[in-house]
């Protein structure tokens, strides 16, 4: 089956630095990817998504990059703030008739922002 994985389980950065969180996926048929943020004691919260016909998408202080050639996804956070400290999950949303409702989540990366 499909798998979505992360290169690093933890990432520690200084406040104000840029953060890059990586994610690898194995299913070349995957066509839609999402990043979620989960703060301590809360449920995951949608950050940004990207479709496979794009290689970059920007939000407020966040950018997602998609490299389909190497099946790699990354989330870049500009000027990281203490409030960005959380676990970040990538998720894969395959465009297939029977399972287009079913997200596959990666295992998560813990981002710690040091003041």
């Amino acid at each position, binding site marked *: 089956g499909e798998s979505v994985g992360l290169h690093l389980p933890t990432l520690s950065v200084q406040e104000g630095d840029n953060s890059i969180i990586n994610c690898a996926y194995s299913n070349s048929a995957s066509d*839609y990817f999402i990043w979620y943020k989960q703060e301590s004691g809360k449920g*995951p*919260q*949608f950050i940004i998504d990207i479709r496979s016909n794009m290689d970059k998408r920007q939000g407020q202080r966040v950018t997602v990059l998609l490299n389909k050639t190497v099946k790699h996804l990354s989330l870049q956070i500009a000027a990281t703030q203490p409030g960005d400290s959380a676990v970040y999950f990538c998720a894969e949303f395959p465009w297939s008739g029977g399972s287009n*409702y079913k997200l596959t989540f*990666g*295992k998560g990366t813990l981002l710690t922002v040091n003041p």
Partner: protein
Amino acid sequence: DVKVTQSSRYLVKRTGEKVFLECVQDMDHENMFWYRQDPGLGLRLIYFSYDVKMKEKGDIPEGYSVSREKKERFSLILESASTNQTSMYLCASRYRERNTGELFFGEGSRLTVL
């Protein structure tokens, strides 16, 4: 704002007990989901529901059942709780449109089975 409410934040149950986890959403979403979250394993899908009275197994349905009698409510049932079901349980909902993966999650229910 969308609100997904899970009835219990923390529960402690004994092995063999029947456990009900309730989830209510207020945005008229068709799809609802139950995940469990364990350290190092991420989020794994237990069951989901397309719409009222509809359900489908996820990746790890063994030991669980669900009920969706009303659109806003999706219940997860552990018929006979076991210690390996100690976990964080997350409910989520979303609009049925095919091309969005945005799920709205509740705060989670942390279940401990002794």
